[in-house]
């Protein structure tokens, strides 16, 4: 059913449809509305779940860990400081191969403290063993949650899924969204069937000590499983299309006018909506431009990126995060897709924009398209204010 609602409310509706038995979260802007909506649903009896109000994000993640380990589907959401605070538990959940869906309302990291959107928080956890999916709009947010549980709980996968949505932009933006019907979701997402769980009827030991003779294989196994995730995401998206009618193609990337393009911007998240508008405008003027939207950041779809961009002469990667001291996190992956390959764009430039919630305007995007005719840029910050910078410290 089509509804006009706030992104956070859309998340809550999507999570409600997935019927988690335990929800636990700690409030942090801009995730707060998500858990408040869920709390109201539980209080009204609309959602039969145990709602555990914890004293920190570390405990929120621990509570859902315990719940999933006991065989019950669970949910949590967080942002920024909360995500980094629970980082230790997130590594733990992936290592224990426990399925879970976590909503990350992307927000900048302190210091300095900043509550607005960039993608530094989830990007900083790219090594944790979590599947990371980035949404462009609130419809994708809803659909990624439903597909997320299905993907996470697949018996060959059993890895947790982080659905990343830009804080404030998507969480607090009002959009017209189709909320699927419960019976359709029930058909698409069967009840959680754990591979193993804590049960006195079948005791087992979870979270053991693995010394050097045993540890490495556990990591190798997850690395190999991510290859299976790359194969499963397109299958799940195809099934989703059949059941709900929305087509995300392979669900790994979205190619927006990349065929025959001379310039393509690569990006993740809500900025893709802005870029699409610029692409439409420039295409109408006969310019051959396009957008490659990355949906799955982990596992990273190197082959898809290669296929989409190998004949595009000029590529620019737009990062909403930095890997301080090195090249930007999305840019390095894009460049790696062409390493050792026969074909490659002539220029792959890297731009960082929107940190701490600074607006990325239509003008900014047009600027990037203009800059793409020049030499390759290793890392350039867009819309920087030089008047705020000084070489030496002093008031």
């Amino acid at each position, binding site marked *: 059913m089509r509804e006009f609602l706030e992104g956070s409310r859309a998340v809550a509706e999507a999570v409600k449809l997935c019927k988690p*038995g*335990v929800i*636990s979260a700690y409030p942090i802007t801009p995730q707060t509305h998500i858990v408040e909506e869920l709390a109201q649903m539980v209080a009204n009896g609309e959602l*039969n*779940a*145990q709602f*555990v*109000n*914890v*004293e*920190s994000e*570390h*405990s929120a993640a*621990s*509570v*859902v*860990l*315990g*719940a*999933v*380990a*006991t*065989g*019950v589907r*669970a949910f949590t959401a967080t942002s920024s400081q909360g995500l980094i605070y629970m980082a*230790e*538990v997130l590594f*733990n959940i992936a290592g*224990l191969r426990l399925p879970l869906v976590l909503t990350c309302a992307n927000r900048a990291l302190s210091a300095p403290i900043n509550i607005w959107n960039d993608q530094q928080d989830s990007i900083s956890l790219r090594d944790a063993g979590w599947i990371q999916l980035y949404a462009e709009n609130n419809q994708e947010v809803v659909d990624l949650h439903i597909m997320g549980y299905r993907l996470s709980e697949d018996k060959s996968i059993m890895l947790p899924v982080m659905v990343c949505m830009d804080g404030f932009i998507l969480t607090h933006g009002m959009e017209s969204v189709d909320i699927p019907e419960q019976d359709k979701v029930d058909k698409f997402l069967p009840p959680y069937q754990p591979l193993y769980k*804590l*049960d*006195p009827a*079948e*005791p*087992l*030991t*979870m*979270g*053991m*000590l*693995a*010394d050097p003779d*045993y540890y490495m294989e556990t990591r190798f196994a997850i690395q190999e499983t991510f290859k299976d995730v790359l194969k499963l995401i397109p299958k799940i998206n195809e099934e989703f299309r059949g059941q709900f009618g929305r087509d995300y193609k392979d669900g790994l990337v979205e190619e927006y006018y990349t065929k025959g393009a001379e310039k393509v911007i690569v990006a993740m998240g809500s900025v893709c909506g802005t870029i699409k508008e610029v692409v439409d405008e420039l295409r109408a003027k006969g310019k051959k431009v396009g957008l490659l939207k990355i949906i799955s950041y982990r596992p990273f779809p190197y082959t898809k990126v290669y296929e989409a961009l190998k004949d595009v002469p000029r590529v620019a990667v737009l990062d909403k995060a930095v890997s301080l001291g090195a090249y930007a996190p999305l840019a390095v992956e894009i460049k790696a897709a062409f390493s050792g390959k026969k074909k490659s764009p002539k220029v792959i430039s890297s731009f960082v924009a929107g940190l701490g919630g600074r607006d990325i305007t239509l003008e900014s995007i047009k600027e990037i398209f203009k800059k793409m005719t020049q030499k390759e840029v290793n890392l350039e910050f867009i819309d920087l204010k030089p008047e705020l910078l000084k070489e030496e410290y002093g008031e």
Partner: protein
Amino acid sequence: MENKTLFKAGHTACAGCGQVIAARLVIDAAGSNTIVVNNTGCLEVLSTRYPESAWSVPWIHSLFENAAAVASGVEAALIYLGKKEAINVIAQGGDGGTADIGLQALSGMLERGHDILYVCYDNEAYENTGIQRSGLTPYATNTTTTPPGTKSIGNIRPKKPLPEIVLAHGIPYVATASVAFVQDVQRKVEKAISIKGPKYIQIHVPCPLGWRHEPNFTVEVAKLAVETGLYPIIEYENGALISRRQFTPKPVEEYLKVQGRFKHLLSNPEALKEIQRIADNNIQKYGLKVGS
């Protein structure tokens, strides 16, 4: 004939380890319909080295400080499944994982009123990582991060009153126990399990390695701790003191002189006076002297 314990032999605890004595008493008293959530520490490491586990009940270890939070999730899941009545949930850890790094998660669990028994195995230091000082390390103890020297007596801070902190949360059952009195440990665990809501039991468990005493002295040392007044054995139900172990007090030297970790104090009359004062305080506060 095989011991039907739920915590099997073949684990790699030191000979004479007090913690595994207590851990066995706890799980055998709780029974097989129990899920155990364990913090990182000696107990977790010595009992679950892949591919061997000493546990015959469902058991999970997550991190150092979150047993209470993970147990909260287990309990919530059992409630959702309608199975909580039939299954006990125990969260357990050492003094490090409980009083220090785990205090936040413990407090949260107590405040939310989960139906969980939390057991703290108090060997008074971070023994597993090499005998470093914890919040429950007693005054003047020699640990590797509070070594005595010309500028220091050892641990300069008193023991954190964790049972009192837990009691202040207003939970239905709080008790201390000791491996000196094994039946008392089991009685308290059985009592706790029968009560609904958050419960806390802190068990004094000597560590032959960290305390520097012979392995066969574990029970005797634990007894001396109680009989000098340095480890009150008390029991609270709904905030009221319902039992305490009374004795004829022995001077603290009798307890200190049999452990290497206190050796440096025997020539320090001021330190001995202070420790005696702590003991006398406990004896007075809880009425531990026989006849009071």
